[in-house]
């Protein structure tokens, strides 16, 4: 036990103290922060240009509407169009709009011509189109003498809401709302993808470490003091702790950095044209919807059972890591000098991981369907597919059963790996095939 701890400690410390580990662990969140910073910075820079627009409004349609905004100033003129066309640039305007009188209120297509010195960006054009569109609508409503409130009453928002959300406790079934489905789907993908990466990053680390010890022959010195199982297990534990450390640091650091950046840009960000346009767009549809959506997002995000999701994620992180890393350890032990030899044995590892990965969409599209249930039980898939399923509140008994299967498989695969490892690390210069490997499992080799 004591020696196992000594080995685990070395495996952990030599990696964590490495410059490359510290760099990757800190640079990854900083890199995400930097990308967010750069895009935020350019967005806020780009938003500084203000457009001044001159309008020739023949039907006095726009004058009645409230068009002014931080990024667009509107002036009106009754001069002849030909005069304006030649003078608007000299008068300091970026854009000249010409809107003719509307004679038929039922006319649906109304052309507004514009003249500009610079090419206009698509968002700017769309923003102007929206402003004029709503002004014309208001004008038409007014001219037709329709009661504005009555008209507003005709607009119907249909929201498909789950009938079971709310207080009806008698009803059975999942109470997920639409927003929570969106959040769960994103989370499902993120967690599944994270598991996929973790398996290859840290499993690969274990394999390289086993190979290094075998190839530089220190394994013989070490195995004369400890059992091969202790060495392999110490390595699995040490590297597993490295993975846990890194993932935990990221889980903490990424939100902190993003929050700090959010504070830095703070109010500025609200003034970017994109934001404003987004707000205006919302205003056009229904101002309250946006705020309501955000509030709903935050509520649903908080409502997710994090005290369940995070521990379960960590259980599958460790389970998946141990299963696949023990495969990698076994493969590393069979390699004498050249990575090419490992290829034939890599396939059985890569294939289940990739199958599980491509099954993620099937899981979040039908979280309680047969594929999802099978995938989250089968131990080679469950480390990826159960975390992908967990945001959708699978039945607790299924999670527990899957964890039991996972733990049993971890023990089984470590046992298999240890049997291959103890023979493999002393086997040099011999071609090894599957038949050979299966024989190693039953060697008497104390």
């Amino acid at each position, binding site marked *: 036990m004591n*020696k196992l701890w000594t080995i685990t400690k070395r495996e952990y410390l030599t990696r964590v103290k490495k410059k490359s580990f510290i760099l990757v662990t800190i640079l990854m969140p900083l890199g995400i922060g930097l990308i967010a910073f750069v895009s935020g910075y350019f967005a806020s820079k780009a938003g500084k240009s203000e457009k001044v627009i001159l309008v020739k409004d023949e039907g006095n349609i726009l004058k009645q509407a409230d068009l002014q905004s931080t990024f667009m100033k509107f002036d009106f003129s009754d001069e002849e169009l030909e005069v304006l066309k030649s003078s608007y640039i000299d008068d300091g305007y970026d854009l000249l709009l010409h809107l003719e009188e509307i004679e038929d209120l039922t006319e649906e297509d109304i052309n507004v011509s514009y003249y500009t010195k610079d090419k206009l960006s698509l968002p700017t054009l769309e923003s102007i189109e929206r402003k004029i569109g709503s002004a014309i609508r208001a004008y038409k409503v007014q001219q037709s003498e329709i009661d504005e409130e009555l008209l507003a009453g005709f607009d119907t928002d249909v929201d498909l809401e789950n009938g079971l959300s709310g207080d009806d406790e008698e009803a059975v079934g999942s109470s997920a709302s639409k927003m929570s489905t969106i959040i769960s789907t994103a989370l499902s993908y993120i967690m599944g993808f994270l598991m996929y990466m973790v398996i290859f990053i840290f499993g690969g680390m274990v394999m390289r470490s086993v190979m290094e010890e075998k190839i*530089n022959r*220190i394994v013989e010195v070490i195995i004369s003091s400890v059992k091969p199982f202790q060495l392999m297990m110490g390595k699995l534990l040490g590297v597993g702790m490295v993975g846990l450390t890194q993932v935990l640091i990221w889980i903490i650091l990424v939100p902190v950095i993003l929050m700090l950046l959010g504070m830095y840009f703070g109010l500025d960000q609200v003034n970017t044209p994109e934001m404003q346009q987004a707000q205006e767009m919302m205003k056009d549809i229904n101002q309250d919807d946006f705020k309501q959506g955000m509030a709903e997002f935050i509520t649903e995000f908080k409502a997710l059972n994090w005290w369940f999701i995070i521990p379960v994620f960590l259980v599958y992180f460790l389970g998946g890591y141990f299963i696949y890393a023990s495969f990698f350890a076994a493969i590393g032990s069979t390699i004498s000098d050249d990575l090419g030899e490992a290829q034939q044995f890599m396939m059985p590892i890569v294939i289940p991981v990739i199958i599980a990965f491509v099954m993620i969409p099937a899981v979040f599209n039908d979280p309680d369907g047969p594929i999802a249930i099978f995938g989250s039980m089968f131990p080679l898939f469950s480390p990826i597919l159960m975390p992908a399923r967990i945001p959708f509140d699978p039945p607790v008994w299924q999670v527990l059963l899957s964890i039991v299967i996972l733990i049993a498989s971890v023990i089984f695969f470590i046992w298999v790996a240890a049997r291959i490892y103890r023979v493999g690390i002393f086997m040099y210069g011999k071609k090894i095939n599957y038949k050979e490997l299966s024989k190693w499992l039953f060697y008497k080799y104390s």
Partner: protein
Amino acid sequence: MAENILRLDQVVKRYHKHTAVDGVSFDVGVGKIFGLLGPNGAGKTSLIRIITTITGADEGEVLFNGEKLNSNHPSQIGYMPEERGLYKKMKVGEQLIYLAQLKGMGSKESEAAIKGWLSKFEIEDWWNKKIEELSKGMQQKIQFIATVMHRPKLLILDEPFSGLDPVNTNLIKDEIRQLNEEGATIVFSTHRMEQVEEICEEIVLINQGKKVLEGNVGDIRNNFKQNRFMVGFEGSLPADISRETFEVIEDSDNHLIIQVKEGHNSNELLQTLINRKINITSYQEILPSLNEIFINLVDGKSDE
């Protein structure tokens, strides 16, 4: 304390279809310098791996200090494998402390022992150097320290001098002798028999997994003597000298190597020479080297 630190009894080790060790038995007495000899592929490394508990024997028994070999024993054994290996990226100090802890030493105890050895070799300032920064010879010294720092009762050295220059070879030889004087039993494993002839008191010779020969080096050489003598003399050998009792194997200016024929002894030879008034300056029996004995015994059947 048992008389033998190590006793092997009918040890067998099989790999797949071939038998690497085939019923080998021998004893290593406490405090001896013992040679485990044999050509490459004879089964030496397999035997050592059984003694160091790296692998188990399929049949037979190994006793360490009179007890059946168990997991407490490796901490009393120091083993330097033929293929040397250290963690290249680790620093000398860290690495030795790690290996000492795996041998069951405490961290303070091991640090003191390691510093002692480093200063003995006058390399204290290597503590913070990475192994990959050291030359091969330097790495060998670190490997040697790693083998002996826990004061093992039994030291097993597999080809200890391979890759060492003469200066370092002598340095290590001296250290080994000193450890032996301090009570450690040494087992040398090598296929270069001339290297151990002068150091080892007892040997066992194995070939193709089987024990060919064992015993005291002097006894073995005596047992295998072929009645050859080297005679130094002045002048030259008369051409008509009677060759009834002997045969000249090598004839040079002032000495002869002579094979005494069966049924005769060396005194008759001397008599003959004296009778012819040959002035003898030296007279010595030639004992065969272990190498010659070995080649004689296995008749070139080894894998080498």
